[in-house]
Every structure is written in structure tokens, then in C-alpha cells.
């Protein structure tokens, strides 16, 4: 089947004369689009600029990066699809939704990758580089035809666009500019202000010579012009003006800025995907705030240097992802044992082992809580939004310092690269630690002056006259003297543990999304919040008594969970990690391995918490969650019927 004969291919509209207003205007409350290319063709940059401009126009925005696992995957392959998904709309957007409504694809193979993942809506509009259809290489022409055949079972509207041909009228190398032409197409389709986009382009290329910005803006305008002339397609999404001061950024930027805002002065790291961009950002800017970024020789040394800096009076940060967290375990236990404040940011990826390095998962929860031998209580928290990525770093530093403890902050690859706007933080000096005061230690003051009720104590740091002592990973008494006696070991463990209970008593129960009681409560943590709440809203709209709650703290857990759970007939978690399918062979209620939060909640509350979890290497879809909730509700009512019979 040739493209011209495919039922799904729309001929480029030529009847609506140059520059005339499109007849075909869609009015929608939200739209989801993506730009996909071979790696290195700039689709990600195009998407990032579109998302930033959307946010600056006051649209609600959520983005998801489409990232290949390799730096330079072979061209024109499904595995090499690279780009950006942007869901934007009139209201706040909290997740990536169910499917994509419009795609700009630089070749048919990357389009196929998205098609095969079932990522596209049945009526998806596809703008695709047309050159491959007439490529001199017969094999490529065949691949194009095969691809068109494969997608023909859907009602996609395929619009071939001569991207390269157009770009060649302005530049020699279309690989370096097609993305800006594509941005121009989108600007015209969605009626964006071209000057706003040009500004954003100039900001993106601010460090390069002005010719670079100019060439990119030229290509943007070329795209706009081409779409005006040739596309009878216009999508209008209304927006609400607001006076609220807002910022737009991704989660790794938010975490890095949060670390600076918190007054942290030292960060040690080792490169690891998908955490590296936090470190790279800090490497670029941290020194301006007097902060030291140390790229250590390995993950272990990064933890050690952070602990050393913290021991010497700072509160230090180390940034990593799952495999790095595993390597840091012994040092984290040392920080727990010596009560040296430490913040560990774990940008979670798919595991186990090297797993899915560029893709999202929530599989480090139990490792974050329990990966040390011996009892090593620490605080674990999980921001759910980009905004929380910022503020959780501030909270983490304060807790680490006040409680002399380790705080592990779990974000993930979805938050790391997803962009969202949020209320601009109002920075506060009180977030910072007081400047170092090397006052003399008064007699009787001890390095582990545990308050017998709370376990809290003030730390003494090097430089303080009269406070000299040796901290040790061995069991120790109030004076930090090595002590193996049963009483002191019991006391030390109790004191380190008690601090978590004290922290828990300062917290409020988590808020409930939906009614305070009902048939089913969904519990989540981390980046799945938006998708879970959207799913809950849909199922509630169908008349079901479903609510959800989202936990920011996983250790210690927020109070009141048992009481909240008692108000619902059923409780289940929705998580982005592995659990056994109860219907799978050999799986029984006795041997079924559960989602990580479900496992914890059952232990904590003695409630028969069920779970629905998946490990797709991509964020959960609200539609899939809603289906799982419906299945849970109908299974529950069937059980009740059986009981009643």
C-alpha cells in the first residue's frame, strides 16, 4: 500500500489558500502531544521549549521524556525513539494521561515505537517527515510502506510533511534544525505566540553565539509559515489567566534548587542515570552559593565524603539512583550509628541490578528503609510533584539536622525529567542552618547526650574546644566510648529509633482525596499521585465510593493510617513496582509477593491491604488505574454476594 492510497493518510490541505484561516478548528480542554525523533535530532529540545512556553502561557503542563537507553542508538529504529510528551490543558495537569492525541514524528520507525506501545489515541493526528516514502533506498521505502500498513488498523490521521525539504531551503544540515521547524508547526496548530517561543529559543541558546539563536528562530518561522500555507488544522485550548507567581522546571532542577534553598553546602556524587542532571546542575551553580560539589571516585566515596563534610559541621547531600543506593548502604548505616546528619536523594529507576536505567520505577522503597544489616532507622520521604521535589529537600535538611539522622528522599525518573509549573517558592532564611559556631563545650556536655524520652541530642563538631571525642561505628555510650555492654547497646538502638517516633508525632494524618469513608481507599506514594487521583475521580464520577490518600513520609509513616483505613471496606495500594498477579500460576494469598508499600502498610496497620502494581518502565496511566479500581470493586462485590449466599 502506498502512502497516497492509504485510507488513513490525509492529503495536505491546499484548498484553503495561503494564510487563510483554517476551517477545521478543534476546541478542547486539554491536549496531549509528543515529538519523537532519532536520538540526536532534537525532539527533546523541541518538546522542552514547547512545554516551557505552554507553562508560561498559564496552561497546566505535565511532560514525560521519551528516552532511549543508549547514547547513539541506530537511526530509524523503534529502540532509538527519543522525544518528549506534553500534556497541557486549561486546568492543572498532574500526570501524562492515557494517550497521545498528536504526534510529530521524524521517521516512521520512531512512530511505530509509540504505536506499538499503544501510546496513541485511535484518532491521533500524526505529522510525519514525508521524505522516507520516496527515499532512494528501496529498503527504506519498503519499511515506510510496512509501517503504514501496520498502523492502518487505527483511525490515525496521517499528515506527511516535507520537513527536510523545507529545512534545506535554510540550512545545510537538516538534522540540526528539523526540531525547530517542527516547533513552528506546533506553534501554528495550537495558535501559540511565535515571539514567546522565539524568546524561549534565545534563552535556551543564550550561551551560544547569536547566529545560533537566529538560525533556530528562522526555522521556527519557516515551520509556522509552512503550516499556515499547508495545514488545515487548528487546535484551541482555553487558558485561565492567573496572578499567582509561578515557576516551571523539572524535578531534578527543583531538587537541586531545593538543596540550595535549604542551605546545604556540600554535595558529593558519582554519575548515575537518571540522577546525574541534579548533580550537573549543582556542578554548574552550587559554587555561586559557596557550596562544594565533589565528584567522588565511586558511589561509596560520595557517601563517605558527604558524611565527612557533615561530621565537620555541614549538612551534606549525596545524589544517586538505585544501584548507587545499594553501594552506599554501609556508609548510610555509619551515619545512622554516629548520628551524623545526611540527606540522600535517590532518583529511582527500574531495577533490580542495572535494570532499566533511563526508565521510571518505585522499587527502592524497601531498600531505602531496610537495606542495612542491623537496625538502622532513618527517615524516608517521597515527593509526589515537581513542587514537592523542591520543598522536600528543604524539609529533609531540617529533619536531618534537628534529628541528627539520615533522610532518604525518593524521587523517580518520571519526576526527574517531567516539567510542571508551580507556585514560586518564597525563600526563607530560616531554612538555612545557623552559621557554624565553634563555641567551647561546657563541662558535662557529651557527644551523645540522648534525651531519655526523645533520643535527641546536640552534636559537637570539630573546632569546638573541650568537645574532643572520637565518633565510631562501634556501639558507644553517651561519651562516644566504645561499649559492648547489653544495656548500652539496647539504649543506643532505642535512642536512634525513638527519634523517628518523635518525628512522627509532629506530623498530621495524610489528607484524603474524595470522601472520608467509603468502599475503597487507594493508597499511593511518590510520582503516581496525579494519575491515581485522576483515576479515582473517574471512578467516583461513575458513582463508586472510592477515595485515595498519598503518603509523603514512608518512614516514619504519617499518623492515623489505621483509623483512616477502618473507615473503608477495602484498602489497596497502586504502585509502580512489582507484585505477583494473584491469578498467575502457583500464586496463592499465602505466597503472593506484594507491592512494597502494601507490604509495609500491612505490617504497620494489620489491615488486609491489597495492591495493583505494574513495572512498565513508564508512568502509570490513569485509565489503567481506573480499570484496576473497577476490577477491585467488582471482585469485592462478588465476594460479598458469595458471603451473603
Amino acid at each position: 500500500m502506498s502512502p497516497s492510497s492509504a485510507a488513513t493518510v490525509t492529503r495536505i490541505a491546499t484548498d484553503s489558500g495561503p494564510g487563510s484561516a483554517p476551517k477545521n478548528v478543534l476546541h478542547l480542554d486539554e491536549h496531549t502531544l509528543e515529538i519523537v525523533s532519532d536520538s540526536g535530532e532534537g525532539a527533546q529540545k523541541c518538546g522542552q521549549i514547547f512545554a516551557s512556553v505552554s507553562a508560561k502561557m498559564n496552561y497546566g503542563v505535565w511532560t514525560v521524556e521519551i528516552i532511549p537507553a543508549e547514547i547513539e542508538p541506530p537511526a530509524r529504529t523503534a529502540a532509538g525513539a527519543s522525544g518528549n510528551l506534553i500534556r497541557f490543558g486549561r486546568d492543572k495537569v498532574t500526570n501524562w494521561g492515557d494517550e497521545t492525541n498528536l504526534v510529530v514524528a521524524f521517521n516512521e520507525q520512531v512512530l511505530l515505537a509509540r504505536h506499538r506501545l499503544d501510546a496513541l489515541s485511535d484518532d491521533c493526528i500524526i505529522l510525519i517527515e514525508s521524505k522516507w516514502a520516496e527515499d532512494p533506498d528501496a529498503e527504506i521505502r519498503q519499511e515506510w510502506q510496512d509501517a503504514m500498513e501496520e498502523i492502518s488498523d487505527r483511525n490515525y490521521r496521517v499528515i506527511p510533511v516535507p520537513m527536510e525539504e523545507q529545512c534545506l531551503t535554510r540550512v545545510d544540515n537538516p538534522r540540526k534544525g528539523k526540531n525547530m521547524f517542527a516547533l513552528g508547526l506546533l506553534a501554528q496548530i495550537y495558535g501559540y505566540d511565535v515571539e514567546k517561543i522565539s524568546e524561549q529559543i534565545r534563552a535556551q541558546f543564550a550561551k551560544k553565539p547569536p547566529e545560533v539563536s537566529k538560525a533556530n528562530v528562522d526555522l521556527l518561522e519557516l515551520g509556522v509559515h509552512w503550516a499556515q500555507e499547508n495545514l488545515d488544522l487548528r487546535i484551541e485550548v482555553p487558558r485561565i489567566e492567573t496572578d499567582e507567581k509561578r515557576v516551571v522546571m523539572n524535578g531534578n532542577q527543583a531538587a537541586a534548587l531545593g538543596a540550595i534553598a535549604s542551605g546545604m553546602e556540600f554535595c558529593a556524587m558519582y554519575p548515575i542515570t537518571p540522577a546525574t542532571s541534579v548533580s550537573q546542575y549543582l556542578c554548574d551553580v552550587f559554587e555561586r552559593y559557596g557550596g562544594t560539589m565533589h565528584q567522588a571516585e565511586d558511589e561509596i566515596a560520595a557517601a563517605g565524603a558527604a558524611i565527612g563534610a557533615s561530621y565537620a559541621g555541614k549538612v551534606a547531600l549525596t545524589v544517586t539512583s538505585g544501584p548507587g543506593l545499594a553501594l552506599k548502604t554501609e556508609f548510610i548505616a555509619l551515619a545512622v550509628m554516629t548520628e551524623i546528619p545526611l540527606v540522600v536523594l535517590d532518583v529511582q529507576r527500574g531495577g533490580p541490578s542495572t535494570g532499566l536505567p533511563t526508565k521510571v520505577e518505585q522499587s527502592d522503597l524497601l531498600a531505602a528503609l531496610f537495606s542495612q544489616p542491623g537496625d538502622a532507622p532513618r527517615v524516608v520521604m517521597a515527593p509526589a510533584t515537581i513542587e514537592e521535589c523542591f520543598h522536600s529537600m528543604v524539609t529533609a535538611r531540617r529533619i536531618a539536622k534537628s534529628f541528627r539522622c539520615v533522610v532518604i528522599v525518593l524521587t523517580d525518573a518520571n519526576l526527574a525529567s517531567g516539567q510542571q509549573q508551580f507556585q514560586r517558592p518564597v525563600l526563607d532564611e530560616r531554612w538555612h542552618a545557623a552559621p557554624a559556631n565553634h563555641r567551647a563545650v561546657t563541662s558535662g556536655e557529651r557527644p551523645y547526650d540522648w534525651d531519655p524520652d526523645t533520643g535527641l541530642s546536640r552534636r559537637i563538631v570539630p573546632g569546638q574546644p573541650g568537645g574532643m571525642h572520637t565518633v565510631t561505628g562501634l556501639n558507644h555510650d553517651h561519651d562516644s566510648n566504645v561499649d559492648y555492654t547489653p544495656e548500652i547497646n539496647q539504649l543506643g538502638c532505642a535512642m536512634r529509633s525513638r527519634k523517628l517516633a518523635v518525628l512522627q508525632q509532629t506530623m498530621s494524618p495524610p489528607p484524603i482525596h474524595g470522601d472520608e469513608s467509603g468502599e475503597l481507599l487507594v493508597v499511593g506514594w511518590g510520582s503516581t499521585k496525579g494519575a491515581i487521583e485522576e483515576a479515582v475521580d473517574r471512578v467516583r464520577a461513575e458513582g463508586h465510593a472510592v477515595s485515595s490518600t498519598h503518603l509523603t513520609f514512608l518512614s516514619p509513616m504519617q499518623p492515623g493510617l489505621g483509623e483512616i483505613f477502618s473507615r473503608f471496606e477495602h484498602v489497596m495500594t497502586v504502585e509502580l513496582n512489582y507484585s505477583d498477579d494473584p491469578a498467575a500460576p502457583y500464586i496463592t494469598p499465602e505466597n503472593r509477593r506484594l507491592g512494597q508499600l502494601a507490604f509495609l502498610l500491612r505490617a504497620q496497620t494489620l489491615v488486609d491491604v491489597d495492591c495493583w502494581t505494574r513495572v512498565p518502565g513508564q508512568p502509570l496511566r490513569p485509565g489503567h488505574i481506573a480499570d484496576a479500581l473497577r476490577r477491585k470493586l467488582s471482585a469485592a462485590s462478588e465476594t460479598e454476594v458469595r458471603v451473603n449466599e
Partner: protein
Amino acid sequence: MSEQLRSFFGCGLDDDRTFDLNDYGDSIPRWCVGCGDHGVLSAVKRMMRDQRLLPERTVFVSGIGCSSRFPHYLDTYGFHGIHGRALPIATGVKLSRPDLDVFVVTGDGDCCSIGAGHWLHATRYNIDMTVLLLDNAIYGLTKNQTSPTTPEGFETNTQPHGTYLPALNPLSTALGVTNASFVAQTADWVPAHLLATLKAAYEHVGFSFVRILQRCPKFSAPVFSEQARTPDLHELLFHSDGITVPSLDKIYKHRLEHDPSDLDRARSLAEDTERTRLGIFFKDATRPCYNAIRHLPTYTAAQNIERLNRELDRYAV
């Protein structure tokens, strides 16, 4: 610490306190009788007294092993860490607090085996600290296992038919690392030389690596016993820019003039283990120090908030 830094932080030089040995600790170490660590501890205290180190501004970091108990027997600040990882901790301490005098005490298992990766990189960072490798050629705390520096053929609990491989040479290893700036060797049984070496190591600005040959009477006594009794098995390296201990000249007949700026010769002297050479093999104070390169001014919270607000402007909607 350099004089410049001392005056910058207002400590040390303009502090006219003097100390006696007990000010640096008077507890009784729990090392075995005859253990070389006792002598090293005494020499370290004497060096600190002579150099008037302020106990509250001195930090001893160690890993795990017999020698790593060292900080517990000193009245300075101490950090008894985890096995092999003293150097990363010390790196963090010195980077964030350049006003502190930082020492690392490590052993042949701690430094040359489990912590070898850190050792190599710490040498290259050339952070201003003094590192004492207490090398007794055996794992002592875990009771008699082969370490990387155990001589070939020596019988241990893990290699009972004799240690399989030739011993790792810590001096050659350290001298092979790019940006190494101070490598010396001394022995617990030559106290005057030990003290002079510690002093030179402390005064050197950079990563001062001192291998201290150290007897373990329990598990590796034969490795050093003959040597410790026989001055003729030694060769003292001397130079106007190295270590000169005139009181030893009568006993230690073999002496060799060696200019510590000569790296090639340092490497060949380190490779040749026919004689136990004591002295400074290599010293170069011009090598870049990571802590000096990375030294930053401090800002007030208000200054940082103002800057961060400008950064947030970049993200403003």
C-alpha cells in the same frame, strides 16, 4: 595546614598555647604488648606537641583494623569509620573545613586491599592531609589472614601453605599515581626517624603518604623481627630537602643521598626491596591540591537567597 590558611582561619599561629603529651591523650591503648602501634602513637603525640597542634582543630580519621583504633587513644577529634573508607571521610572533612588538620590512620588491609580504590584517588586529589599507613603485613584484628603486603610464602590462616603471590609494594603504587606529592617510609623500630618523618609529612602541604613498617608480635613477627634487629638491612635516604637524623648515623651505616624531587629515582629506589629504605622518596609541594583549587568563599543566607531568587527568575512563568 599552610601558614596562609592558619592566619585566614585565625588559629594555630596566633594561639600561643603549648601542650604536653598527655594533652593529646593519656588513655592506655588496647593493643597487644609489643605491637608497633604503641610506638607510632607516642611519635604522633610527640610530633603534635612539637608542632603545637590544637587538639580541637585536629581530626584523626581511620577505617577498621588494629591500627584504626588509633583515634580512640587521642584527645583530638576522631572519626573511626568503616573498613577501607577513611580516605573518603577525610576528603569530606578537609574539603568542607580547610581550617582543620586532618590525619588518616590506616592499615595494609584497610588501605591497600578494601580501600585501594580510594587510596589511588585520594593520592591524585592531593588533599592536604597526612596519611599514616601502619603496615604490619597481616590482618591482625581478624586474626592472621594474608593481606596485600604479606610476603610471598608467608603462612597465614587463609593461605596456610604460604601466601601465593608476591606482596604489593605500597611505595611503588603510591609513586605511580599521577599527582602524588609526598611519599615516605619509616619504621616503628627507629623512633627518631619515625618522628622526623611524621614532622616532614605534617609540614608538607598536600597528601603526605607515610608507610610505617610496623611489627605485629602476634601474627607476623617473623616478617620484621630480623630486620628490626639488624640496622645493616636498612638504608637511610638523606638530603637537605629530605630527612636527616644525625643521631642515627652511627648505627645505620648504609646511607644514600636522594633528592626527593627526583621521581624517576624515587620509583627505582622503591622498586628495589633488597634493602629497607627509610626516608622521603618523593616530595613536590607544587603539585595541585584539590582542596586549594576547590576552596570557596562563604556567603550569608541573605546573599544566597538574593542569588537564588535571580536563578528562580530564569524559571518564572
